[in-house]
């Protein structure tokens, strides 16, 4: 277990290094010039040149990257071009909100998706199954900003059950988490259904029935633990999908997380913030996958660590 973790952590560092390199190069090649954004339209060529030198943007790409990497290793993500604040401070002030949203979304999608999948599998071929699968299909295919606005209109504007936007209490969390969760629950319900259908056909389920166990016990103790194994690995991958969705959903609900931060930074070509958010997201994805693998390892005795 220990050597497995060490190896995976080393791999993770390599992945993050790769991500930083690719993002850095892409941003460097961007047609938009950050210096123009900082200096404003009326700035003279001399001012522009001064700012460029001040930020070190006149150096060759390799030098810039090397310097960035050196700072990064000391935990320094640089300063925002426009806000004159440390990027790490900005991110840390907004990360908790995003993590909270993500936790809420994962909870929502697992709750909705897994229960829909299990029910559909147990009633396979019935009307219930058909309806649930249509619902999940809609969930998968509906764009998040549409789902978000729809939920806002129905539950906030019309019914007044939840606030329209903002951050702070549990009721603020419900709608954004649901918006993100609905997409995932569509995936999970389909995956859980096919996994469950597959497991219910297995010989050991027949053995469980031959033992004279109750249906409830067969499902909860034998079918479910086996059916959920492939789903666990999926949760790790899901964190990546969330990072994309978070930008949209945070904008719709005015949620003060890193998604909004990233969105503003992209508009203003504030490269240090874009880099920082990208690296934090990549770290989250890597950790998500690692956690999913470790959980799989713990619940499935057949997986051997090598």
């Amino acid at each position: 277990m220990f050597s497995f973790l060490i190896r995976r952590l080393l791999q993770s560092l390599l992945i993050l290094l790769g991500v930083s390199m690719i993002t850095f190069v892409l941003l460097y090649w961007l047609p938009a010039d950050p210096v123009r954004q900082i200096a404003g339209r009326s700035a003279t060529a001399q001012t522009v040149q001064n700012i460029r030198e001040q930020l070190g943007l006149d150096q060759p790409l390799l030098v810039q990257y090397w310097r960035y990497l050196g700072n990064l290793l000391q935990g320094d993500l640089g300063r925002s071009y426009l806000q004159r604040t440390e990027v790490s401070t900005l991110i840390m002030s907004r990360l908790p909100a995003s993590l909270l949203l993500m936790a809420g979304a994962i909870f929502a999608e697992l709750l909705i998706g897994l229960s829909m999948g299990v029910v559909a599998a147990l009633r396979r071929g019935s009307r219930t199954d058909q309806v649930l699968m249509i619902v999940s299909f809609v969930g998968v295919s509906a764009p998040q900003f549409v789902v978000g606005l729809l939920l806002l209109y129905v539950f906030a504007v019309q019914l007044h059950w939840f606030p329209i936007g903002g951050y702070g209490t549990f009721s603020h969390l419900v709608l954004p988490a649901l918006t993100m969760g609905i997409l995932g629950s569509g995936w999970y319900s389909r995956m859980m259904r096919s996994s469950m259908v597959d497991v219910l056909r297995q010989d050991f389920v027949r053995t469980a029935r031959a033992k004279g166990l109750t249906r409830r016990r067969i499902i909860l103790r034998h079918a479910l633990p086996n059916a959920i194994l492939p789903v666990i690995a999926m949760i790790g991958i899901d964190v990546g999908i969330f990072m994309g969705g978070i930008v949209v959903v945070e904008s719709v609900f005015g949620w003060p997380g890193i998604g909004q931060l990233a969105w503003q930074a992209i508009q203003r070509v504030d490269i240090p913030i874009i880099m920082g958010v990208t690296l934090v997201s990549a770290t989250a994805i890597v950790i998500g996958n690692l956690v999913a693998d470790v959980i799989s390892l713990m619940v499935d005795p057949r997986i051997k660590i090598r």
Partner: protein
Amino acid sequence: MIGTAEKPSGAYAPDAAPVLQVSNLTVSVNTEAGLKSLIRNISFSLNPGETLAIAGESGSGKSITSLAIMGLLPPPVVRVTEGQICLNETDLLTLPETRMRDIRGNRIAMIFQEPMTSLNPVMTIGAQLSEAIMAHDPIGRREAHTRSLEALTAVRMSQPEKRMSQFPHELSGGMRQRVMIAMALALRPDVLIADEPTTALDVTVQREVLELLRDLQRDLGTAMILITHDMGVVAEMADRVIVMQSGQMVEEGNVKQLFHAPKEDYTKALLASVPRMGDGSGAQEGGKAGASIAEIRNLKVRFDVRGGIFGRVTHRVHAVENVNFDIHAGETFALVGESGCGKSTIAKALAGLLPYTGQIRIAGSEIHSLTRAEAKAIRRDVQMIFQDPMASLDPRMRVGDLVAEPLVIHKIGTAAERSERVAMLFDRVGLSAAQMERYPHEFSGGQRQRICIARALALQPKLIIADESVSALDVSVQAKVLELMRELTEEMGVAYLFISHDMAVVENISDRVAVMYLGQIVEMGCRAQVFGNPQHAYTRRLIEAVPVPDPTYERPAGLRLAGDIPSPMRRLEDTPKLAKLVDIGEGHLVAMPD
């Protein structure tokens, strides 16, 4: 509670009231065309302590019968449409599901064919056993644990305490089947249904499990329904036999009477096609010593196992160690041994599907020394037929195209010539050219294997590797496919490397035999030498373990088997000891203990 009813004890008592009575049982499946019966008018009774074998080939309805008794038919598609199943005085078919659940696993228990998949992979053995006991007896976890341990001990499991906390994948097939038996017999049921309990096991393990079943049944007085396709198992285990064919009972009778004076034609034909072991005589020895087609020298195949932080090789699986043999033109050379002995690995190396060290010479050319193009040309001389014909035929291709494919790959002939050749091959393997346009699922298992043989023959190979090619077939079909293979050697001079775990089949088809154990050949010689005068202890053990299809056969007592075969996985520095083969006369090679 039902579980507290008095259990019968003691041995088979033919005069006692039957414990299970099945009358006029008809099971049907709902299809779009209406109800279609799967089994019709099955009637039999089972006496306390008796073993009743239900024998028949695939599709005969024997498993449906057992599932109907257990109340485990898949509803609502398959259901009992007529008849009664009475356990003592209770008609099981009228019971509600909750009452039926009290009976399942408690008074009627079942063992299934596939020990590898019949246990829950994420639950410990102990939990699965305790669960079965606690489902019927209102006892605590601690007591259930104690009783599970007793049950494991009763099935002669080695280190039962340790097994309790292990998971199924840590146990071998034979051990898992013991767990299934322990689970089934822990509550001392009145009736035990064993559905092909040893079919998936190696022959020596099968012997142990059969003996265990017999001993336990004698001690507990359980009545047993043994479902099997293997007439050898029937002869050894059963008191009475029912022969089934396409959903109907063909014949019923006492085991001795049925084997020695079968009344029905189907029973006679079934018994006639069972491969029987003799002493290896009757072969024309020496007559087939053609030029050698394949020469295998010092063949080694090892698989690396990696571990640690940097993924270094820490262990190796020594799948094949220093194997030498020749195959001559027109002969059938058999490799026998139990699962994991390396016989299929040799086949794959020979077919160029695996990297190996050592020399393989095909038709005089050393494979390692050839260029890519030359190696491809040589491949034409070696073709393979696999165990599962359905899995080795692409379901979306017409069978005519499947057979023509090797010709296409090697760019032989025009389209018209190819189709003519395919038609000829179809005719040769006993299919009609009109069937070329069909898809694999439209054929039966035996026909599919004929298609695979036709495909292997397309390139006119010198050597065909048949890896367990008849193992999945019913005996009557198996006999015909073997006959076809034999004819092909005589007509076309093709040689076979025949790989099988089935000693009786090997004895019937092979000219020369090599017995493999843990990656090495332990005995090799012509059929008469190996079967008539087996010298190595392992060869004897294999031959002894084969069930004999003769109920009057007295098995020599005192044969104790040494349990599971050790793992071929070894640490890097630990190389296996190589067996030294000694010629004990006329080319009969035996590994000598030193």
